[in-house]
């Protein structure tokens, strides 16, 4: 066993941390809350030039062939600095769908510009009746000659409001909940009949409702064989959940650090409030929870690339549950220990609280992953 980062990874971590500290202070995110896109396309381009987007793709697809542990290092920094650029939506969700299911031509057409930082992507999978189950696909894709007609609605599509290209799951056979019969289609944003309605999310970021009202797409826009996309979506759910664990760890670390600083400076009853044992012990409980979430986040980061899907699910679901338990505790107590100032929009701690809540829900909440963990053969 070895949990140390390699010298290269340590360098990566410090480079990312110092770049983001300078280029993406929390004040930048604050201002972007009012922006219709909600992030900076020029900073996205810079991130691509730094190789961060390529990190997640193999060299065969034009990437740098990094591991998920490398990606997790980046996402932890995103969490600590509330960086809103759509890495998870573009790279891990839609990017993985194209990488796994797409042809060499589709890689060239969609991944190359993504890795160059010229585009962002989104994966439209969630539906109103399915909660966190990606096999609950009511959206249909009906074959019509050399084309498909897509009909349905997708909700809370991360980066759906601004993506240049969307990947959409639709049913080519079977009924909602069936593993077989789900296909993926890649659609340029300007596709006729594709309606994108931006949606604000609690954390100050944005998503979209995607309505497909008889959208006609050529058969060539299908990713991979017809009806066989469920395993790809299952892997993406795990990548997204593992990403939430890494980003959430950054959120927790920042929340703990801000809270400890506050306890060291705020005075009441003529003394620093950090001298009070009740508050010290609460801060220690936050610290313990952060260390536990770190431990399971590492587990998820390593196991998410395991060739055995059962191993992958077991570890990632465990980590996502632990994230929920720990993240909720740490950010709620962070607000509590800040007192009244923690309830104001003006103070950053509330932004972390909100981001944590969103991360807990994305790619499956605590109940979803508890049930999934309990359903694995290893349980």
């Amino acid at each position, binding site marked *: 066993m070895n949990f140390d980062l390699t010298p290269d990874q340590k360098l990566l971590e410090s480079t990312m941390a110092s770049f983001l500290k300078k280029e993406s202070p929390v004040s930048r995110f604050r201002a972007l809350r009012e922006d219709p896109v909600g992030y900076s396309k020029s900073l996205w381009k810079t991130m691509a030039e730094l190789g961060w987007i390529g990190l997640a793709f193999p060299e065969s697809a034009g990437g740098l062939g990094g591991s998920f542990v490398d990606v997790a290092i980046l996402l932890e920094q995103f969490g600590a600095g509330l960086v809103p650029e759509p890495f998870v939506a573009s790279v891990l969700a839609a990017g993985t769908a194209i990488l796994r299911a797409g042809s060499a031509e589709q890689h060239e057409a969609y991944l190359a510009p993504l890795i160059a930082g010229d585009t962002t992507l989104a994966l439209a999978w969630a539906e109103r009746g399915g909660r966190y189950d990606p096999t609950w696909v009511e959206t249909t894709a009906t074959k019509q000659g050399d084309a498909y007609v897509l009909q349905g609605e997708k909700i809370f599509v991360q980066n759906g409001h601004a993506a240049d290209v969307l990947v959409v799951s639709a049913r080519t056979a079977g009924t909602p909940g069936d593993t077989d019969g789900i296909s993926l289609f890649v659609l340029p944003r300007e596709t006729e009949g594709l309606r994108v309605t931006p949606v604000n999310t609690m954390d100050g970021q944005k998503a979209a409702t995607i309505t497909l009202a008889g959208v006609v797409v050529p058969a060539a826009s299908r990713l991979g064989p017809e009806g066989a996309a469920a395993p790809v979506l299952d892997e993406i759910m795990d990548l997204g959940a593992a990403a939430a664990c890494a980003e959430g760890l950054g959120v927790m670390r920042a929340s703990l650090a801000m809270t400890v600083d506050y306890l060291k400076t705020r005075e009441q009853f003529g003394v620093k409030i950090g001298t009070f*044992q009740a508050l010290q*012990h609460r*801060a220690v409980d936050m610290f313990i929870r952060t260390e*536990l979430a770190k*431990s399971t986040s*590492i587990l998820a980061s390593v196991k998410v690339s395991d060739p055995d899907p059962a191993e992958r699910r077991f570890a990632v679901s465990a980590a996502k549950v*632990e994230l929920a338990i720990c993240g909720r505790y740490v950010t709620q107590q962070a607000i509590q220990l800040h007192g009244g100032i923690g309830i104001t929009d003006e103070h950053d701690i509330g932004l972390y609280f909100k981001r944590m809540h969103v991360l807990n829900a994305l790619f499956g909440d605590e109940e979803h992953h508890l049930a999934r963990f*309990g359903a694995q053969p290893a349980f």
Partner: protein
Amino acid sequence: MDLSFTPEQSAFRDEVRAWIREAMPPRIREKAAVDGHFEHDEIMEWHRILHGKGWVAPHWPAEWGGAKLDVTRRFILTEELELAGAPALSPFGLMMVGPLILQFGSDAQRKRFLPKILAGEEVWCQGYSEPNAGSDLASLKLSAEPDGKGNYVLNGQKTWTTYAQYADWIFVLTRTDKTAKKQSGISFFLVDMKTPGVTARPTLTIAGTPAFCDTFFENVVVPAENLVGPLHGGWTLAKALLGHERTYIAAVGLSTRTLRRVKQIAAATKERGVPLIDVPAWRARIARMEIELWALKMANYRAIASAELGHAPGPESSILKIRGSEIMQQMYELAMDVMGHDALSWHNTPGTIPEAEASVPPQFNYARAASIYGGSNEIQKNVIAKAILGLPS
């Protein structure tokens, strides 16, 4: 990042597991299968078997009989012994006074005491707490005064001296200077339990077993050569103990074993004809507990891997005692809840409740001690608040 054990480490795990299966005498094996309560003679029998294999004190230096096992192998050995339900050895000689004598004792003391601890020929108990010195240990009062003839005379009382009724020796913190600041007037003595004036009176614990004692000292004469470390320097020894062997304190093997028992009971217990393990709410609760155990286990693995690489203990190691005791307690609590009415049974004749459940109620009770002994969890949090978070006093 590499979360796997090496093939050599896995082979060692197999070796330990196979050896335990072979070496465990039938009577101990039967009790282990149901997590029964081990009597003192059974614990010492197992001690001697482990000693025969050279595994009784793996953390001691080789020249004093240690097992020449690295950090990870020591962890694997501990984990496998816990997983097998083997009797937990008395820690007072092997884990506490032994390492202190090694670190602070004279050569004569090492030669006199260490081999007998190792062989299980002398059993030790710990004399730290007093009726008015618990978490505030430094306010202890047991007095040790020189008699002018090369001896010290001890008067006072120790409490929670676990298994003093079976002990040959006790190590005690005593007050040798009543005028100094309270931490500066403490000395560390080794006392033969057969010395006139020493009385150990067992008291029942909430588990219904006589684990604790009150130990009284009335004009107990102790030779000066039994002082370990400098006179009035005992507080250094008391604190040193807290830094020992933290990596093995989380009892993940034991809690993993209890989790297995929870699942076993939940599969055998039915509600309206359905095994509890298949009732979604129960399954989710058990899953949640298993995940919390995984988090602790991963934190423990981080601490071991870090120690193996020679790093100083990181922040993750400070949480192991707190979290290990909490998980252990919650795991027994879950077992009790799964048992339903059976959890109400208290030391009844065998067969009253299923054999797999019988040990749970007493263990559920005794597990409350885990968050108190060895520095209560509140004391641990005081330490973390200052040492790691840097909060003001």
